[in-house]
């Protein structure tokens, strides 16, 4: 009632102008626009989902299950590779260096001739290394620092000399690859962790910085306090964060007029 009275008192309109305007203002929103808006409204509430793309949901489930299975299989493989190696033969330390050398130069019974030949050829030091699976395994054994299983130093040296087979060709390349892979897996984690830790640390630091550059939820409750916070960010020189916040503010409070 009060509104009506005040409207009448402040009536600044003109009937003729209104009537003429009504005659010209006959446009209607195009049907295509209506359809687009209503579709958007429908999509936002998820009603149109099952109708239009009903196959997507089962497809997504199937893909998720498949992915999970693949991960489980992969993890199983990894755990098999990571199982402890068969126990090494205990190598008795030689009582004296001479004995050790002699003992080392004698091939054990049942060793194949080429292996023995390889030992006799005595390849140069630079040819040694992981050229054979046995050498790779030896390297791996050397890196293992468990005191209960580690062989005494002289015996290990002897073993290396004895097992060094770089003088003959190995036909079974996959074995070599597998041994190398095994060695990598045994040594890898720490190296990777060392490499990853600094990058992770810097990423955490960046995230922390980003979090501190955002306005709190309490501040975001009203557009005015949110805008004040954005101004604070701008004043502090955080232009990018301020712009990001401003975009979010516009989305959350579209009716708020940015001064």
């Amino acid at each position: 009632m009060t509104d009506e009275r005040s409207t009448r008192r402040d009536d600044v309109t003109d009937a003729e102008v209104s009537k003429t305007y009504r005659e010209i203002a006959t446009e209607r929103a195009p049907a295509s626009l209506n359809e687009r808006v209503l579709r958007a409204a429908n999509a936002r509430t998820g009603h149109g989902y099952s109708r239009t793309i009903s196959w997507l949901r089962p497809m997504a489930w199937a893909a998720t299950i498949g992915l999970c299975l693949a991960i489980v299989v992969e993890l199983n493989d990894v755990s098999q590779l990571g199982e402890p190696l068969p126990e090494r033969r205990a190598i008795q330390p030689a009582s004296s260096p001479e004995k050790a050398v002699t003992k080392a130069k004698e091939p054990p019974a049942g060793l194949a001739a080429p292996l023995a030949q390889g030992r006799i050829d005595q390849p140069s030091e630079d040819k040694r290394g992981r050229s054979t699976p046995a050498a790779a395994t030896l390297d791996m054994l050397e890196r293992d620092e468990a005191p209960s299983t580690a062989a005494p130093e002289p015996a290990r040296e002897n073993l290396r000399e004895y097992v060094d087979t770089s003088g003959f060709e190995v036909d079974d390349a996959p074995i070599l690859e597998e041994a190398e892979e095994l060695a990598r897996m045994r040594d890898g984690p720490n190296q990777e962790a060392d490499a990853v830790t600094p990058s992770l640390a810097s990423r955490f630091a960046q995230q922390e910085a980003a979090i501190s550059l955002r306005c709190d939820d309490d501040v975001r409750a009203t557009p005015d306090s949110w805008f004040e916070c954005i101004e604070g960010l701008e004043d502090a020189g955080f232009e990018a964060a301020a712009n990001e916040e401003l975009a979010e503010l516009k989305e959350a409070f579209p009716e708020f007029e940015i001064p």
Partner: protein
Amino acid sequence: MILTNPLPAGLRLSCAAAVSYAAVMDHRVDDSALMLRYRDGDVEAFEALYRRHNDSLYRYLLRLCRHRDTAEDIFQDVWGKIIKSRERYRPTAKFTTFLYRVARNCFIDHLRRNRRHEGSVDIDVDTQMHDGVDAAAETERSLARRRLESALAGLPEEQRDVFLLHEEAHLSLDDIAHVTGVNRETAKSRLRYAVNKLKAAIAAEIADSLEAS
């Protein structure tokens, strides 16, 4: 089709009854209530709300921008924002005020981004004759309409905005002041200037036709 809200629990309607109920609901339920129902996932409520305001908002933007493509872009943008912000919607003011405030902000954002609408007027004034009306009178009305359209396009932006909010959204002076972010007296003054100029434009047309006859 089953309507559960606000009907009593367990009451089911046939399709025809539901349609007639929806028609009644369309006129009785408050805009804000419809918006709140849409917030809770009722898409039909949004459709009812949209049908109430789509044409008037479209005309408002069309005459504010004076460029059809721009108006359509902004129109979509406005409704997109309304849809997105439904979670945060609180019926603190009239929905119409909220809607036109969003529309105005979108228009201002558009102005800030680019100014392609400037100087481009592509709105066709309906000059077709209406059936069963005297040809001379119709010509006169047609001229008046054309004159008004031209005068409206020539108004300063603030005055045109206020006039359109008054005519299309049927907002009161207080609401216009709220939407445009000025005080009530400023809004009133702008509206008066706008109406007087438009009135003068129509009157000049009538005087011209009288002189000619």
